[in-house]
């Protein structure tokens, strides 16, 4: 594992940049545990201060330090993204592997449901869920809803991998050796599916974070919990752009773009590592 990481860092420039960016942002987000003030406190500092030696990224119109707000916000946004990713991976793996392994009628039924879910527009459904939940909408509920909507594309991918494993020799051996379906799937097939899970997890994380930003920018989440989208929401509420308080909006946008860039570079370089064909073409074959 560490050897792979070392080789990727040494030979793959995209991975190196992505790794450093993501790590830097993660450390920055981690710093919020040592923040000098609670992230929910408002009107603690003089409002609308431009970036200075005392307030590096300035303060908001609500009297918060932009730097520390951002630190908490990135942490919360990443936490949301990871929760969605883990939940939706569980679903995708379960449905994909069972569908691929069983084949036949089960496969047809599961994949029909899967394709139906893909065709449903996510945002209107999420907005409807928010609308009917309103104030009882907390971030875990939102994460669970997002996870329920975000697994189907990857389930199809995982299914296609399992489908090809089903007819391999070792699967037949395992069946004859008396292994149960669960044992075969977990012990025999899961290792082969792992790379796909990992790669789709990266993409799913990016998707989930984008979703969180989108929804909280509109104020459709717990607006008192700092998130990147939530910061932009409050900045819009206070008309920061018109008032000239650019630092309130520019820094969160820069942070989110850097985070996306880092994760995206990681995702494509990991994909390249997993798919040997693109590695060959890098070598000039």
């Amino acid at each position: 594992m560490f050897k792979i990481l070392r080789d990727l860092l040494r030979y793959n420039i995209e991975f190196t940049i992505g790794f450093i960016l993501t790590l830097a942002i993660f450390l920055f987000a981690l710093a919020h545990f040592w923040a000098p003030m609670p992230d929910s406190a408002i009107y603690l500092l003089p409002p609308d201060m431009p970036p200075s030696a005392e307030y590096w990224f300035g303060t908001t119109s609500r009297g918060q330090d932009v730097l520390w707000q951002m630190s908490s916000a990135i942490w919360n946004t990443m936490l949301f993204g990871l929760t969605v990713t883990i939940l939706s991976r569980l679903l995708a793996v379960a449905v994909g592997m069972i569908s691929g392994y069983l084949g036949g009628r089960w496969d047809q039924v599961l994949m029909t449901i899967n394709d139906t879910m893909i065709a449903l527009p996510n945002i209107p459904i999420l907005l409807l869920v928010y609308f009917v939940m309103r104030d009882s909408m907390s971030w875990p509920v939102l994460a669970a809803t997002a996870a329920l909507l975000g697994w189907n594309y990857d389930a199809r991918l995982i299914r296609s991998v399992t489908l090809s494993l089903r007819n391999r020799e070792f699967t037949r051996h395992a069946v004859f050796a008396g292994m149960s379906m669960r044992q075969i799937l977990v012990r025999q097939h899961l290792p082969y599916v792992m790379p796909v899970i990992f790669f789709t997890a990266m993409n799913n994380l990016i998707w989930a974070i984008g979703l969180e930003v989108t929804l909280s920018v509109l104020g459709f989440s717990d607006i008192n919990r700092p998130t990147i989208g939530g910061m932009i929401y409050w900045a819009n509420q206070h008309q920061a752009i018109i008032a000239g308080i650019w630092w309130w909006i520019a820094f969160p946008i820069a942070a989110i773009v850097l985070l996306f860039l880092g994760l995206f570079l990681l995702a494509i370089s990991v994909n390249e590592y997993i798919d040997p064909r693109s590695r060959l073409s890098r070598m000039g074959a």
Partner: protein
Amino acid sequence: MDGFAKYLVRRLFQCFLVIFLGVSLAFLITTLSPIDPVEQTMSLMTSFGATDPRSVDLMREALAELYGLKGNFIEQYLSFWGRVLRGDFGPSLSAFPTPVMSLIMGALPWTIGLLMMALVISWTLGNLLGALAGYFRSNTLLKISGAAIMALNPVPAYIIGLVLLLMLGYIWPILPISGGAQMNLQPGFTFDYLRSLVLHGTLPALTLVLGGIGGWFLSMRSLVSNIVTDDHVVYAELGGVNSGKIFSQYVARNALLPQLTGLALSLGSVFGGAVITEFLFNYPGVGRLLIQGIYRGDYSLVLGVTTISIIAVAVAVFIIDLIYPLIDPRVRLG
């Protein structure tokens, strides 16, 4: 024709299934939620001042009737389907007494126009650039544009739109940032109106194009770079077929098939991006309608827009499925 008919029936079945499950889901979300829409609307209405308790009761009755929340679960479900099929979601509360349906019908052409423009541009451009980048792998210009497109790819539509709005709306104000057309112009086929239509649509469409192009570019490039090493392409190259023909007929055409499937699959999420973009640029489509409905607590409007957008996306996917056999003869011949 047999294979085509079979294909068509299968796709039609899928389309109906999507609509059935989607509409049922919308119903389930609204009925199973712990919050009663009637009480919610009541608290919204009575918050303006003291109301006579008797009229509150009457209003509660009327709202339950209006929202189709009378009777048991099955009755409500059936009556919901009845309303969907009749296209009758009742009057909108925030724009009383305009029916929700006429609000949606007024907004739908805007969304369809915007989405079609953005999709056609981003799909064509993304695939073309992706195919070129996959075919001419050593071209520096394509590599640079590829890196730029890829960097934009993961950024959500709202952020791209906000940055565009700040750059082209405030810092260097050359484009209108709000609305679908100039307010004081009479809609019609006049030059002025069409010009303002295009100008107002540019920023929202650009947002969607920039947000969508990366996905097409990436998948097309990897598809093409795989096909390039296929036997039939290598054989054609050795046989001296000119490279333009190899590119368009041997490589790009084959790679386009999965991309068309991808287009159908992505419509749902593209629509989601359009919702946000419309709201950001105050574009008079269904997305803005939906978000305004949520802000104003307009239950019928939100439910109506969600249901109609599920149906509209399903129908659009079906239309793309109809194009597929034109490109892939295997489907046509069965």
